[in-house]
């Protein structure tokens, strides 16, 4: 599904990622762990299509060169990023944002757009599953939402858009234990044989609830070690500093 080969990324001639390689197959859950400044967020930014980086190497998503696709085209193809810091958009109603987003993606895929009633049915169902306060859907997007609500809103969007590849950029940071469980349940309910996940995190905690197939340790711009879930526990015990 996703093949990253020899990715190098600089920002203002400072090297962030180098010799970065990763392959994710359909249905797999990968976790990337790493200390601050190791390049975790850069990776999610680049996958989503954020501008401002000098990049080389290759990223293939379902055999298409990602560098040739605009951000929105990547979203149409099924890439979703749950942002580390979800943006506030004053004046824009959360429901309207969600509906516009879903219909833009459906339209790009040649699917029928949902009308207001069909959409509300869907959003109500998903909100209930994620224990997301429905009343918040009528508020301005993320405005006045707590940190946890913003993160839950990302997962709600993810479950409505039903992407092929979901990238969770430190979605667990700032969540209390109840919210963490809800987020994990949301992710687990989307786990299917065709849907893949890339979970970026500092801590092992989230991985207690979302069992990854692979864990990668990212340091100094590239993966220094890969393994199964036990690698996350090892990291937690040793700390990044003593790891190597």
């Amino acid at each position, binding site marked *: 599904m996703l093949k990253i080969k020899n990715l190098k990324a600089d920002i203002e001639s400072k090297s962030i990622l180098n010799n970065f390689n990763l392959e994710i197959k359909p249905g797999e859950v990968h976790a990337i762990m790493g200390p601050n400044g190791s390049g975790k967020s850069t990776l999610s930014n680049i996958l989503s299509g954020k501008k401002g980086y000098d990049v080389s190497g290759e990223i293939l998503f379902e055999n298409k060169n990602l560098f040739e696709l605009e*951000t*929105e085209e990547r979203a149409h193809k099924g890439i979703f990023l749950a942002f580390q810091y979800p943006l506030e958009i*004053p*004046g824009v109603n959360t429901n309207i944002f969600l509906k*516009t*987003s879903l219909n833009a*993606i459906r339209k*790009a895929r040649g699917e029928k757009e949902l009308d207001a009633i069909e959409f509300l049915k869907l959003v109500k169902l998903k909100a209930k599953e994620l224990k997301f306060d429905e009343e918040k859907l009528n508020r301005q997007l993320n405005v006045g939402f707590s940190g946890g609500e913003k993160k839950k809103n990302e997962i709600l969007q993810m479950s409505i858009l039903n992407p092929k590849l979901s990238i969770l950029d430190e979605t667990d940071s700032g969540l209390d234990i109840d919210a963490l469980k809800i987020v994990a349940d949301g992710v687990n309910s989307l786990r299917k044989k065709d849907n893949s996940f890339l979970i970026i995190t500092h801590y092992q905690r989230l991985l207690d609830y979302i069992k990854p197939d692979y864990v990668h340790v990212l340091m100094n711009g590239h993966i220094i070690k890969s393994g199964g879930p036990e690698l996350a526990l090892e990291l937690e015990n040793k700390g990044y500093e003593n790891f190597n």
Partner: protein
Amino acid sequence: MREKQIDKLKDYKYGFTTDIENIRAPKGLNKEVIEFISKAKKEPKWMLDWRMKAFERLKNLKEPNWQKPKYPKIDYQDIYYYSAPKSASETPKSIDELDPKLLETYKKLGIPLQEQQRLNGIAVDAVFDSVSVATTFKDKLNEVGVIFCSISEAIQKHPEIVKKYLGSVIPLTDHYFATLNSAVFTDGSFVYIPPGVKCPMELSTYFRINASQTGQFERTLIIADKGSYVSYLEGCTAPMRDENQLHAANVELVALDNAEIKYSTVQNWYPGDENGKGGIYNFVTKRGLCKGTNSKISWTQVETGSAITWKYPSCVLQGDNSIGEFYSIAITNNYQKADTGTKMIHLGKNTKSKIISKGISAGFSDMTYRGLVDISSKAKNSRNYTQCDSLLMGNKCGAHTVPYIKNKNPESNIAHEATTSKISEEQLHYCQQRGLNPEEAVGLIVNGFCKEVLQQLPMEFAVEAQKLVGISLEGSVG
């Protein structure tokens, strides 16, 4: 991508011209031209005298120059003050007698006059260059006693009302452009709502400048008699021309006891090209008088067109407990400039005013909100609330807020809030990650920003206005 956007921008949907035979007054501003206009309109003598008084006064007036957008000197002798489609100069008795080319023009503009009868209950007065060419739904309005016709017709048929109210809100000698309009105004709409009548449909005037080198000086007068209600909407477009054309209109509203007037504008005059060449100078005087107690006047404007927009739709709150409102969206892109806002003059007791202004600037454009809240010593227990929000796109445009506040009454209360924000790269990226292209993203964010004002528009026009907001900003991202 960028080129595609510019192409779209060039494609100002209303930029076509209609090849139609015109009757024109000779170029220039002089007594003879004013006489020509008055004669062409078959006006009574009092009207011509009134025009001449304005013309005499004009000689002693200077153009104001305190506004922020400056413009090259206008040669008032190089403008045609009267241009009328030949076929309409003999007033047609019904829409069926209109020149088919005119009907076609309005159809292209999305206003099928013939079909108006069957449409959703909006009466339209169409003004083409200097004359009103058609007013729809006259019969139905007559039934309830509502008068909706061109001002020229009103001067002939309802002189007593016109005489009483024309110039009662904007005095003959008010300022240069208003006085110029009083001397040379050509056409516009007239509305009278009798006591106790709630006008059964939206009234709408559609202004179109077609002829080149022609100014449009329309005059609109709306009177809502005691206990009546009317909602009125005007729309404007013009062909794409390299020259700047002057549009200096006067609009006067009078609301008597317990009457309410809702006046909405969707202004989409040609804004000039992406380098700032051509476009309309939209220098308009709009003022409403809340003459009666408990009267209410509400202005809503969506200003997206024109090279320069310079206007302050105002309310004079004379009657006790009267209410004035101003809701505005002004958008400037490329090299457009706007200096717009309102004046709320509180004279009566317990008067209330509310100002909601949303300014959006993109490209190299420049936007100024200028507003006056004046509470006189007699206006006890009056209140004003002002909210001015500016949204910037890119870093080459400007936004300015210039509020003037005069409060001579210690029992009154004025509140002013202002914000300036920018559409951030991060917000755009977020929307794009959710599948929206940059223009859809900007449209969504901007419509969210303007929501409070868009909600004030009559339903049928809110959708149009929403689209217009998106179109006006095309090419401003990427």
